[in-house]
C-alpha cells in the first residue's frame, strides 16, 4: 500500500497478518497477545463487562447491538451452566472478514473467547464455524490446542482458578445457521431453523441455558479493549459507532481485501486505499454491508460507514462487506444471482421467505431472459413488501433488500430487459478474467426451484 497514505488505517486485528506464521501462538504473544487476558484475570468479571460497555463496542455481525449490553442481559448466576457461543458461520455473499481473521490470526478470537467467558461466568464456550471452510476449522482447532497447551485454556487458566473449555464445532453449511437461534439448534444437533423468541438466548439459549452469542470480530476485539482500555477503543470511530472494524472490499476493485479502519470511513477513502475501481471503468453500484443491505451507487461514496450514517442513507452497515460493481455489470443479473442464493438458503420454516424467494427467483430469471412482462416490476416490489417484515427471521428481509433497492435505483435497466426482450449487457465483460460464457439458455422455465 504505497501510493495513498495508509494513516487512516487502524490495524489491530490485522496487525500481524503479514508476520511470518502469523497464526501461531508465539507470533501472537510476541506482538503483545494475551496481555488482555492477564489483565482481565486481575479484574472482577463485572468490571470486564463494564469496560466493554464503556468502549462502545457494537456487534460486528451486522446488527450492531451493543456487545456489553448483550452480556448484561444474562440473568444472575443460578449455579447452572451458562454459555458463550461464537458465531463464526460467515456465509453472507460478499462478507469475508471473520474467515480471513481466523485464518491469519486465530488467537485474537481465542483470547477474546477466554476474556468474554471469564466476564460472563461461562466455563464452556463454543465456536460454531461454517462447515465449508475446513482450513479455517483446522486452524482454529490448532489454535485452541495451542492455547490449551500454553495454559490459557482448561483447568485453572493461568493459575487464576478459573476453568474454561472451548469446543470448535463445524456446521454443515447452511446460511440460516448464522441466525443465532438456528445456530444454537444446529449446535445442539437439531435441524438448523430459527427459534421462536422469546425466550431470547440470554435467558434460554444453548441447552436452554443463558447464552451469549457473539460474532467473531466482536469477540476478537475484546482483548485489545481490555489491554488498552475502553477509552482507547472509544477514541476511534464516530458518535455512536466507536472503534475499529474490518472493511472487506471485493469485486471490481484494484486491490481487494480487508482494510481495518475506524468506523465512519467512507468508501471514497477506502477505494483510494484499494487503488480504485477496476481500471477503465467507473463505479456503478455497491453494497455497504453484504448482499442483504440495500445497494448504493456512486452518489453514496462519501457516506460515512458507520451505523447511523449508512442507516440514514437508506441502507445498513451490516458486515461492512463492500462489494464493488463497475459499469459492466447488469444489475438484474447481479440481483438475480443474489436471489438465487436466498432461495437456495431459505430454511423453509416460514411461508414468506420459503415461497417468496422461490417466486422472486423465477420472476428475476424471466426478466433477465427477456421474458418479463409489464407488471413484473410492480409484482417484484409488492412481493418484497409481502416478505419484508412478515418472515420469521431476518433472512427473508435480507432477500428483499437487493431487489427493492435495485429497482428503486435502476428501474429503467429492468425495464430495458423487458422492453428489449433480453439483457443488454455482455456478462463476459464484467468478469475479472477471461472466460467463455456458458450457454445463455435460461433456466427460468425449468421451474423446479431447488438446488
Amino acid at each position, binding site marked *: 500500500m504505497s501510493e495513498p497514505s495508509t494513516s487512516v488505517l487502524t490495524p489491530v486485528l490485522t496487525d500481524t497478518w503479514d508476520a511470518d506464521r502469523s497464526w501461531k501462538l508465539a507470533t501472537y504473544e510476541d506482538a503483545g497477545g494475551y496481555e488482555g487476558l492477564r489483565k482481565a484475570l486481575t479484574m472482577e468479571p463485572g468490571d470486564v463487562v463494564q469496560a466493554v460497555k464503556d468502549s462502545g463496542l457494537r456487534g460486528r455481525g451486522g446488527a450492531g447491538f451493543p456487545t456489553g449490553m448483550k452480556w448484561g442481559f444474562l440473568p444472575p448466576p443460578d449455579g447452572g451452566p451458562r454459555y458463550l457461543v461464537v458465531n463464526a458461520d460467515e456465509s453472507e455473499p460478499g462478507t469475508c472478514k471473520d474467515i480471513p481473521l481466523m485464518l491469519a490470526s486465530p488467537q485474537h478470537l481465542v483470547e477474546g473467547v477466554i476474556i468474554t467467558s471469564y466476564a460472563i461466568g461461562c466455563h464452556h464456550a463454543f465456536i460454531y464455524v461454517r462447515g465449508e471452510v475446513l482450513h479455517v476449522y483446522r486452524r482454529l482447532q490448532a489454535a485452541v490446542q495451542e492455547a490449551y497447551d500454553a495454559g490459557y485454556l482448561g483447568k485453572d487458566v493461568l493459575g487464576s482458578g478459573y476453568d474454561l473449555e472451548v469446543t470448535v464445532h463445524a456446521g454443515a453449511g447452511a446460511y440460516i445457521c448464522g441466525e443465532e437461534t438456528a445456530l444454537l439448534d444446529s449446535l445442539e444437533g437439531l435441524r438448523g431453523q430459527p427459534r421462536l423468541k422469546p425466550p431470547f438466548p440470554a435467558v434460554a439459549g444453548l441447552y436452554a441455558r443463558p447464552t451469549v452469542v457473539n460474532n467473531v470480530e466482536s469477540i476478537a476485539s475484546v482483548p485489545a479493549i481490555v489491554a488498552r482500555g475502553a477509552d482507547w477503543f472509544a477514541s476511534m470511530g464516530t458518535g455512536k459507532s466507536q472503534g475499529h472494524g474490518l472493511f472487506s472490499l471485493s469485486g471490481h476493485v484494484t486491490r481487494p481485501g480487508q482494510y481495518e479502519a475506524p468506523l465512519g470511513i467512507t468508501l471514497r477513502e477506502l477505494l483510494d486505499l484499494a487503488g480504485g475501481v477496476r481500471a477503465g471503468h467507473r463505479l456503478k453500484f455497491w453494497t455497504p454491508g453484504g448482499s442483504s443491505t440495500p445497494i448504493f451507487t456512486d452518489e453514496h461514496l462519501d457516506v460515512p460507514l458507520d451505523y447511523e450514517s449508512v442507516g440514514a442513507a437508506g441502507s445498513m452497515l451490516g458486515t461492512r462487506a463492500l462489494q464493488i460493481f463497475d459499469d459492466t455489470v447488469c444489475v438484474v443479473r447481479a440481483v438475480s444471482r443474489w436471489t438465487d442464493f436466498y*432461495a437456495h438458503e431459505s430454511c423453509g420454516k416460514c*411461508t*414468506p421467505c420459503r*415461497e417468496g424467494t422461490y*417466486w422472486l427467483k423465477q420472476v428475476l430469471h424471466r426478466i433477465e431472459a427477456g421474458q418479463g412482462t409489464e407488471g413484473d416490476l410492480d409484482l417484484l416490489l409488492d*412481493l418484497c413488501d409481502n416478505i419484508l417484515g412478515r418472515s420469521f427471521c431476518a433472512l427473508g428481509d435480507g432477500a428483499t433488500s437487493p431487489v427493492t433497492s435495485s429497482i428503486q435505483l435502476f428501474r429503467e435497466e429492468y425495464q430495458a430487459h423487458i422492453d428489449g426482450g433480453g439483457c443488454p449487457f455482455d456478462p463476459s465483460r464484467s468478469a475479472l478474467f477471461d472466460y467463455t460464457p456458458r450457454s445463455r439458455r435460461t433456466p427460468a422455465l425449468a421451474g423446479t*426451484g431447488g438446488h
Partner: protein
Amino acid sequence: MTATTSTTQSGTPPVETVTCTIDEIEVTVPKGTLIIRAAEQVGIQIPRFCDHPLLAPAGACRQCLVEVAMPDREGNVRPMPKPQASCTMEVTPGMVVKTQRTSPVAEKAQHGVMELLLMNHPLDCPVCDKGGECPLQNQAMTNGRSTSRFEDVKRTFPKPIAISTEILLDRERCVLCQRCTRFSEEIAGDAFIALQERGAMQQIGRFDEAVLDYAPPPGEHRAATPVDRPHGVALPDTSGLPFSSYFSGNTVQICPVGALTGAAYRFRSRPFDLVSTPSIGEHDSCGSAIRIDHRRGVVLRRLSGDDPAVNEEWITDKDRFAFTWQSAPDRITTPLVRDRTLDRYGRVVARGELRPASWVEALELAAEGLTDARDARGVGVLTGGRLTAEDAYAWSRFARTVLRTDDVDQRARVHSEEEARFLAHAVAGTGVGVTFGDLEKAPHVLLAGLEAEEEAGVTFLRLRKGVLRNGVKVWSVAPFATRGLARLEGTLLPAAPGTEAEWLGSLATRAAGAPLPADVGAGTLDAVAGGLAEPGSVILVGERLAASPGAYTEALRLAAATGARLAWIPRRAGERGGVEAGLLPGLLPGGRPLSDPAARAEVAAAWGVDADALPAEPGLDTGGILDALSVGQLSGVVVGGLELADLPDPQHARRALEAASWVVSLEVRRSEVTELADVVLPVAPPAERAGSFWNWEGRVRPFGQALESSALPDHRVLHQLAGYLGVDLGADEPLAAHRAIGALPAWRGERAPAPAAAQVEPPPVAPGTAVLAAWHLLLDDGALQDGEQFLAGTAKRPVARMSAVTAAAADVFDGDLVTVSTDRGAITLPVAITEMVDHVVWLPLASRGCRVHAQLGASPGDVVRVAPAAGDAVVVEGARTDHTDGGAA
C-alpha cells in the same frame, strides 16, 4: 381411602388476567393468553394454519399476522414496526391489536401470505379428501386475494408417500405448518416424520438415508430383531425403526390441508355429503369423544371429538379407524333358532343348523328354554365387557329378577375372586374419582398391571402431557420397560408376572414405616412410597392384576398407607359400567353388596320385586359358571357380546357351552358363541343405537344413535325376552333404560369389605421353562378390528421377548425362532432380546398368529416351556421378521 369426592379444590387462587383491546373491543383474558385466542374470545377469527391450541406455538405459516401496539414505559401506546404473528405473542396489559378487520396492513400481510401459500399448492381440490372442509380452501375464500399473480412454474413432488399402510402423504399439498411433526413429538412422542431439505424443497418426510446423507448400513448384516414392528409395509421413522404409531390418525385430522390422508377414507367421500354424529369410542375404557361421519347409512370415517376433560382432541387409531366390524358381512340381521332332534324321552340327540326365525318365534323359544333351564339347575349369565351402561343395568336386572340368579359375570378375561371383592369395595358406586386432569397434575403416578399405551391409549397421552408439562413422575410395575414407558420417562419396577403384589406389598409396608427384609432395594422403595405420599399422587391399576394373587389387596393397602388415590383402568369400554350395574357375583347396582339385606331391599324396591325374590347368596364368576356348565351343575347360559377366544381357557369354555342344555346368545355378529347357541338374538352395535359408556374415571359418556337401524339394543331385547318370561324389565325404551340407572344411585350403606388375599410364592422355574408374561396390544387380532386392512397393517408383529439370560438358558439368540409351548400347544415366534426380568417370556396376548389363551391354554404367570424352534416349526403368518422389506415402497 377411595376417592369419592370430586376433584375440584376449594381455594384455587384467582386467575391473573390481562386486559387488552382487539379491533377496538376490550377483552380480558387470563395472563399468558395468545393474541389469536384472545381474539377468539370476542368473536374475531384470525386466519391460521400452524396454530393449534394443543400444540406449542410455531409461528411458521405467518398467516395470522396482525398489527400490535403496546404501551411503553411512559404509557404511550407505540405500534410495533412489523406485523406480529398473533399465534406466538401473548397479550400484555394495554396492548392494542388490529386484525385484518381494522388494519389494512394486517389484511395485506395476510393476503400476501395466502397468495404465497396458494402459489405452489395444487388446484386439485375437486379430488382432494379435504376439499369442502379445508382450512386452506376456506381461509383462501375469506382472507385471500381473488386472483393469483403467479404464472411461473409450480413445485411438484411424486405422489403420494405411504408413511404406513394407513397414512399417506401428498407433499405438494403440504403448507409446512408442522402440525403433524409437532403432534408426533409433543403429544404422541413417536416421531415418525420430520422436516427435511430446505427452502422451497423443504418437505415433510420419513427417515431416508439418501435424503439425510447417512451412510447406508453395511451389507446384509444381521440386524437386531425389530420390535414394535408393524405387520404391513411401513417406512422407517425418524429413529430408523419401522414407523409404528397408535396415534398417527390424529395427524390426518389436524392437517390443515389434504397433505396427510388416511388410506381407508382416501377418495371415498365428500365432506358435504356426510352426516356427523357425536359419539363415544367403544374400544377402550377412556370414553373418548369421537365423531361418526356417515353417508346414506354407511359409516365412512370417524374423527376425534373435542372434549377437554377426557381426550382433548386426540384419539387412538383404533378408535378412529376400527369401525368396519359394526357392518361386517357376518352381521346377524334376524333372530336365529336351532332345530333339535329329540329322542322319545325328550333328550337332545342332535343339534341342527341355525335358521332365521321371527322375533316372536325366537323369543318364545328362548323363553321356553330358559324357563326349563332355570327350573332345572339354573342359568348363568356371561355378558362380556363391552356393554353400555343401560344394557348393563338391564342385564343385571334380567339375571337377578328373571333368571333369579347371581351367577353373573361380565369378565371375559383372566379374573379372580379377589378382583371381584376389590371392585365391590373400591370401585363400584364411587362416582367420579381420579380424572384425566388429575393425572396431568399428579406428582407421582404408579402403574401396576397396566400398559397405558396399549390398554388405554388416551390415558397414555394425558399422562405424557403431564410428564412433559408438569413433571409427573411415572413408575411402572411390569416385567420390562416398554417404548411407551420410555416415552413417559417412567421408571420400571421390574416384576415377573404374578409377583406385582410383592412390589405393592413392599411399598405399602415401607410407606407404613415398617421394616423390610434386607434384600429389598430400600432406595427405590423410599422414592416410590415417598412420592406416592405427596398430595395428588395416583395409583393406576389395570385388570391384569387379577392374575397376581394379593395384588389388589396390596394396592389398597398401599393407597391407604400413602394417601395416594387409586383408580382401576380396565381395557374394555363396558367394564366400569358393568361394575356399576352389578355384573359381578355378589354385587348389586350402585356398589350394593348382595349380602347386605338393606341393599337387597333397595334394589328390590327399585325393581318392583319382593326382596326375597332376589338371590341372597353370592353366585359364580365366569370361571365358576363355565365349570358348572361343563359338569351339568348349571343347565343354561345367556351370553352377551363375548368372544370365547378372550377367555383364559377357550377350549374349556367351548366344552362348557357344548355341554349346556340351553344357550341364548345376544350378539351383533356371528361368533363362536352363536355357533353353539340354541337361540341367537341380534343386537345393535354402538353406531346403530343410543346409550352411554361409563369410562374408567367414573364419568358417564352418553352418545346418540348415528345410523338409522332396525337393530335393537341389548336392553330392549332383554326387555322383550323378560316379557315372554313374565317379568316387566322396564327397559324397553332407551330413556326408560337410562332412567333405570338413576333409580339406583350409589350405595350409602356399608361398603363391601376389602379383599384380603394372600400373596403366593411364584412357581419354581425349571430349566427350559419360563414364566409367561402377556398383555393385549392396542392393535391385535381382536374382533372389533375386523375388516380394517389398513389399520391391521400398522399392528405390531408378534415377537417373543426375553432377557439375554433367559435366551441363553433356552439356547436361542436374538432373531431366532423360539417355540413357547405347553401341553396344550405351541407358539413359534422370533426372539427379541429385551432388557427385562429373567426367566420370563413375554408374548402379545392375542395378536394375529399368537393367541396365547387359545393356543397355549395358559395365562400370564403360568410356567411355559421355551425352546429353540424345531426345523419344521410352523411360523405364524406375518410373524417372521425379514430384514429386506423395511425400506420398500
